[in-house]
């Protein structure tokens, strides 16, 4: 499978091999990089791959193929425009490619070297057709470090990773740095955990290194249970070796010989690619006993998670790895001292791990030059919700939310108005328009009542009811709570009960204060961070959208017109053409009117089912 000696017996052997891969003459090689990320696969990328292969085959039958390859890659990021195809060497970026387009791309671009304008990205402002990804605003504002090779390399080929410079950081660490020097470099970088808490990575490593006892374990957390988030998934699927290399360097620094990567069971492709990557690394001696002929040994095992959100929490994850129910336990004794099987264990998020090779290669100083005073480097976000360009983005710390949403994300979909953005996953807070100039920074987001989290960004527009959003996330967290401790189980159930009441029009004066009291119990007494942060969506929406709560409770009105029963339907007499479609579809005969004359809804009979609103071809039915 790999054109390499069975196992490199020394670092010099490996370096020779890597050098030959990196200096390979690729002039004249034309390649079609095809995104095989989740979004593109869902839109038929696998079939496109076959079609390109067939096209190459028939061209080579006619003696015209030369050096042409199709390269399946991980997520390119602009999932909104999937499937995505990039043709090298010119780097022409095609979007929303469909099966019939393959022949044209192959003939015009691959063989002819010309772009197919029809399939290019059109800048919504200037109307210009853009050829290269770098010109597209979505990519231009990003700074890709962790994702730099995503969409460029074939994740199933270790040679692709090595050719792009992969495993050179490991070699550097093994040949010229002591474990302490590695930790010092990560400390200079100022890297903080990307999985939620933002704990300084070097400090965690150092505690684990100096903890008494052994064996020591390192773990990659790829559980990613946040709804709508797929940063870690795309990383594991698009560049699995970067996570492995990071863990290797960390294990060397900490003094560990055994690692685990815990991946959500719902990510079969990530599991498959990680397995492939691990076995390829083992094959050539980058994992296993005496790595590259040195005295350093380390191996990694993949474990598939049961799919519960709480299993991403460090102690629950370790319990699950041990084969026990995935429930958190108290952390008064830290896991770096007593973690997996009671041994010193260092857990980091997979994105944290993937940053390590870059820090070792380019130096902690370089890394620390990106970002804000206390938040360094970049962060990957999955930008979803009511946004024009949803997708996977990597931005430098310190960038404003406004730039992410408007420059990268292209603003709100369908010309609607922005209302809020939720950062930090289900227990993050909702940040309103007046704070759009807040910077992506651990402390700044926390001060706004939200958090960095692991990188979910959910954009909400004017049609989103913030009380309903709070209810939705409370409901999610209650369902995902393990139920072990009283405040989380009972407190969230009480919160949900109150929020359900408010969104159904049964809100009572004093409900908001009750929610705040419950929030205080939760944050003070819950066993793990799920419960302790679970009130963030409620508290932040009360903080920034109190008027919406009051409208629901005091006026029995939902300003966003989302909560059924808290607004009414009316027909706009001027827009109504009297077609009678609503009248025919109304299940309770609440609509009357002559043909070709404006219709009316009988408010007493109407059950607010919304059928007329959906059916009216002239949008004459209004929510008021």
């Amino acid at each position, binding site marked *: 499978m790999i054109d390499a000696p069975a196992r490199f017996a020394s670092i010099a052997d490996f370096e020779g091999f890597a050098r030959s891969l990196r200096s390979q003459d690729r002039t004249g090689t034309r390649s079609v990089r095809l995104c095989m990320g989740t979004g593109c696969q869902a839109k038929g990328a696998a079939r496109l791959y076959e079609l390109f292969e067939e096209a190459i085959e028939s061209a080579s039958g006619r003696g015209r193929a030369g050096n042409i390859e199709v390269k399946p890659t991980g997520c390119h990021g602009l999932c909104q425009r999937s499937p995505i195809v990039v043709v090298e060497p010119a780097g022409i970026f095609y979007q929303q490619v469909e099966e019939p387009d393959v022949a044209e791309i192959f003939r015009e671009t691959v063989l002819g070297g010309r772009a197919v304008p029809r399939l290019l990205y059109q800048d919504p402002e200037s109307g210009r057709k853009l050829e290269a990804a770098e010109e597209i605003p979505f990519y231009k504002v990003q700074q890709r470090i962790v994702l730099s090779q995503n969409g460029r390399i074939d994740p199933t080929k270790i040679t692709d990773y090595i050719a792009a410079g992969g495993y050179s950081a490991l070699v550097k660490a093994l040949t010229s740095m002591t474990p302490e020097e590695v930790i010092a470099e990560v400390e200079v970088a100022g890297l903080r955990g990307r999985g939620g808490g933002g704990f300084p990575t070097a400090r965690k490593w150092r505690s684990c290194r100096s903890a008494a006892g052994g064996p020591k374990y390192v773990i990659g957390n790829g559980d990613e249970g946040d709804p709508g988030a797929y940063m870690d998934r795309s990383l594991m699927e698009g560049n699995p070796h970067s996570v492995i290399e990071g863990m290797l360097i960390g294990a060397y620094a900490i003094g560990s010989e055994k690692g685990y990567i815990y991946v959500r069971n719902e990510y079969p492709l990530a599991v498959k690619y990680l397995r492939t990557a691990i076995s390829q690394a083992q094959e050539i001696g980058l994992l296993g006993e005496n790595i590259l002929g040195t005295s350093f040994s380390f191996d990694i095992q993949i474990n598939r998670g049961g799919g519960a959100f709480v299993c991403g929490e460090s102690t629950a994850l370790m319990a699950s790895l041990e084969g026990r129910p995935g429930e958190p336990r108290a952390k008064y004794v830290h896991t770096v001292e007593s973690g997996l099987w009671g041994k010193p264990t260092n857990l980091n998020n997979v994105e944290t791990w993937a940053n390590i090779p870059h820090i070792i290669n380019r130096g902690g100083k370089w890394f620390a030059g990106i970002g804000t005073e206390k938040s360094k480097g970049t962060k990957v976000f999955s930008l979803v919700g009511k946004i024009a360009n949803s997708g996977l983005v990597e931005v430098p710390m310190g960038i404003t939310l406004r730039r992410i949403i408007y420059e990268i994300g292209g603003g709100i979909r369908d010309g609607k108005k922005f209302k809020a953005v939720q950062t930090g996953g289900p227990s993050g807070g909702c940040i309103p328009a007046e704070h759009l100039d807040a910077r992506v920074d651990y402390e700044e987001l926390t001060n706004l009542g939200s958090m960095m989290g692991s990188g979910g960004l959910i954009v909400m527009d004017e049609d989103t009811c913030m009380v309903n959003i709070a209810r939705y996330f409370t409901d999610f967290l209650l369902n995902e709570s393990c139920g072990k401790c009283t405040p989380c189980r*009972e407190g969230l159930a009480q919160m949900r009960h109150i929020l359900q009441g408010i969104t159904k029009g049964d809100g009572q004066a004093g409900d908001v204060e009750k929610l705040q009291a419950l929030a205080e119990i939760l944050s003070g007494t819950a066993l793990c961070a799920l419960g302790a942060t679970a009130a963030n969506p409620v508290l932040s929406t009360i903080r920034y959208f109190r008027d919406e709560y009051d409208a629901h409770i005091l006026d029995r009105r939902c300003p966003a017109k989302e909560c059924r029963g808290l607004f009414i339907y009316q027909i706009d007499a001027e827009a109504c053409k009297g077609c009678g479609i609503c009248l025919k579809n109304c299940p309770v005969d609440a609509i009357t009117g002559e043909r070709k004359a404006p219709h009316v809804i009988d408010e007493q009979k109407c059950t607010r089912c919304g059928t007329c609103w959906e059916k009216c071809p002239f949008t004459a039915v209004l929510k008021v």
Partner: protein
Amino acid sequence: MPTVTIDGHSVEVERGATVLDAARYAGIWIPTLCYHPALSSEASCRLCMVELDRGDWRQLVTACNYPVRHDVIVYVMSERAQQARRGVMELLLARSPDSQELKELAERMGVKGTLWPKVTESQRNCILCGLCVRVCEQIIGKSAIGFAGRGADRTVAAPFRQPSEDCIGCGACAAVCPVGTIEVRVHKDECEVEISPFKSRVKLLVCKQCGAPILSTQVCEQALRNVGWATCLPMQACSQGNVGMGRKSAHATFWPELRKRLRLCPKCRRLQTAGRVASP
């Protein structure tokens, strides 16, 4: 030995003891529900919250599992600690409003009642402290019951919510339950003992003499095994490595006697002993 200062009173405890140990040593009461000295601390009820002095800030911690590793200062009666415990108790009262035991504990804590409605289902007042689950696993060694379901749906049940095959009907779970959820029911007609609400049933051993039900057959067997094992251990040690011999002789002398005596109800056993004393 580190010193723990609780509301101004200082006690010295072994390193690794908990704040609760220290408080009990100092005679200071902290309410607990999911704690039992014979079992591991899971700190799941969150009733034993106290405030820990961290220098420039104070942290709420659970006393039952916070390990004392150096000198610490804690507050049991500070406003914040009391409020935290009250908050947890009020949520529990909402869950299990009919539990007399819970009400008594609440009263002792000075909690008058709860403002929260009942929104979660609880099986016969079960507060999910988990003592039954832990005693069955850690002391009895059976793991016949465990937790099922997540979040508000969490319950204690035998696997697949079916009567357990592993249950020996010992009733240890009922003994540790702080709110009386678990009951040991004797079905005389079927000669069975039931551990309710888990529906597990075990045959009862009947007195050889009078036919009265004595105890679960499985408990009897486990008792015999444990006692027999314990008796042969010292013999093993003095039999110069001849383990087989040692055990055999233990079986030969102690077991039949023990077995016989266990198969009598206490009344008939007394009668038998009395008879023996009277006519040796």
